[in-house]
């Protein structure tokens, strides 16, 4: 069996939520918050919320969209925010720019909605990240499969979702290693195409394992 020179090292991640000093009671205030909050705050309400609500697959993609929908009742803006796909971004700055553009354009087009009070305020928080190695590595596809199967939700999220920002590439840790470590380019691409919005973390993992099993049968 093909063995990688550089092993895949399994990690996990844990997040502490730090409460920020900003909050928003209107869409105009949301825009101000988006413009001034920290990168860790944008990460928390987009990337990280996808991990903490990993069991939801319908109508929940980030905290901003959820708040605009449930507390300001602006379905059209909520939809615009919800369709921003974190896989399209390799930097928080670019994601922030698009969030601000969506809310800013809406406030300009509908100034009477910009100042309307929301049912509940939006509180900007940020993620404080701690990563630790799990002490397990993989050099072969079998070892890799076994490692993925036994990861916690957080570990899976760390390698499959948040890694996109760390790598600064439009890929994830798993795909990156499958291509670079084992030379399995096709498998790498298939794994990268698993939809993280329409799957739960569990169903995404099940798909990944099925793809690996198919590859193993080929060998």
């Amino acid at each position, binding site marked *: 069996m093909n063995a990688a020179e550089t092993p895949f090292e399994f990690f*996990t991640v*844990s*997040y*502490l*939520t*730090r*409460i920020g*000093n900003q*909050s928003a009671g209107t869409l105009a205030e949301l825009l101000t918050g988006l413009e001034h909050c920290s990168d860790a705050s944008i990460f928390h309400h987009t990337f990280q919320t996808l991990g*903490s*609500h*990993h*069991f*939801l697959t319908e*109508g*929940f993609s980030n905290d901003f969209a*959820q708040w605009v929908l*449930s507390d300001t009742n602006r379905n059209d803006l909520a939809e615009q925010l919800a369709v921003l796909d974190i896989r399209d971004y390799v930097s928080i700055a670019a994601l922030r720019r698009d969030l601000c553009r969506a809310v800013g354009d809406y406030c300009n087009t509908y100034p009477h909605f910009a100042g309307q009070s929301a*049912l*509940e*305020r939006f*509180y900007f*928080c940020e993620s*404080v990240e*701690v990563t*630790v*190695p*799990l*002490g397990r590595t993989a050099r072969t596809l079998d070892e890799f499969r076994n490692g993925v199967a*036994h*990861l*916690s*939700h*957080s*570990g899976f999220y760390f390698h499959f979702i948040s890694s996109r920002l760390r790598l600064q590439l439009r890929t994830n840790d798993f795909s990156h290693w499958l291509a670079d470590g084992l030379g399995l380019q096709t498998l790498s691409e298939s794994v990268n195409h698993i939809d993280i919005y329409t799957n739960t973390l569990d169903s995404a993992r099940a798909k990944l394992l099925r793809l690996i099993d198919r590859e193993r049968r080929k060998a």
Partner: protein
Amino acid sequence: MSETLALGRIPLDDYAELLGAGEIEELRALASPLRGRSIQMVNSTAVGGGVAEILTRLVPLAEELDLNIKWEVMSGGEDFFEVTKAFHNALHGAPYHASQKDFDVFLSYNQRNREKLALDGEFVVIHDPQPAALIEARKPGTNHWVWRCHIDLSRPNRVVWDFLEQFVSKYDGAMFSSPEFSRQLPIPQYLFYPAIDPLSEKNCELEQDFIAQVLARYDIDPQRTILTQISRFDRLKDPVGVIRAYRIVKRYFDCQLVLAGGSASDDPEGAVVLKEVLREADSDRDIKVLELPAWAPLEVNALQRASTIVLQKSLREGFGLTVSEALWKKKPVVASAVGGIPIQIIHKHTGLLAHSVEGAAYQIRFLLSHPEIAAKLGEHGHEHVKENFLITQKLKRYLTLFLTLARGS
């Protein structure tokens, strides 16, 4: 007398079946850099109340991870607890005129406890306002001190908060149950949710026979729809509003209502509210008003598991962990959008929120008409609790906090 509590062992691996081995491996990995390092939890009571209940489970679990953790309970006389009870209510927004004498009593007991307790752990976690002034015992630049506030501070009595703030701002961080409960402070503030224990008597799996026995004991028909609210008899839990919502639902659906709470015998206000509830129930045989002895955890568990829908129609709420208890049991929940409830109920995803009697009745009718949606909400609610509101997640949050504090230094 201040005391250090010793608790029985709770094997961490018992949770693996519920959560998966990967989650337990993750806890061990996070705890590994903290092995042997000293942690002190300090509060003001060994039994009774949510904090003691959580520490009773959290401390043994931390020991399972080879952390050197101790739980210290500060001592205080009747005068101290009268003052701190008044502070507690005032911080929740109740009217209160604080006197200098009250502050002196508070400071004097904190001073005495500073002399008695050896607060030399690397990480010291002080729970709630009672021991907040113990921070004065900290030697500069030595250990990490954090303050865990379990109170809603969104509308505090200004005088009492100003007094407390002088101590709180000396900590390395403060933890609140909701961003809404936090204050503008010069120190980092973190979100720490309360938690339920899936293996406790109130939440563990039960035999169907036992559930049937409990229903039979209270003359509840398991074949008919059961709506349940578990809460003490308190106007802020709006039990009368629950009965009014039930009456609206009853026009369209055959159903029973269970209102179960602790005995009102030692709570004068609870007894008054109980009378109001019985008057509103007006001898309706389908309304079961149950006074449970000392909250009978297994019976509460059985009633929640037997329910078709669980309600929490509070007018004000701290965090409202009964919601998480019901969600853990995969029950559809209709609850008010107050306090910490919207953190647990993501509207239309993990349950339904309501803002009035009529709104609650509508949401109940909707769920009774769409049992498949009710089941889905229950499933998602269970996952939401598993991810955020279990004791193991709380432990993980503490480990992350300690690692963050250690990294900072």
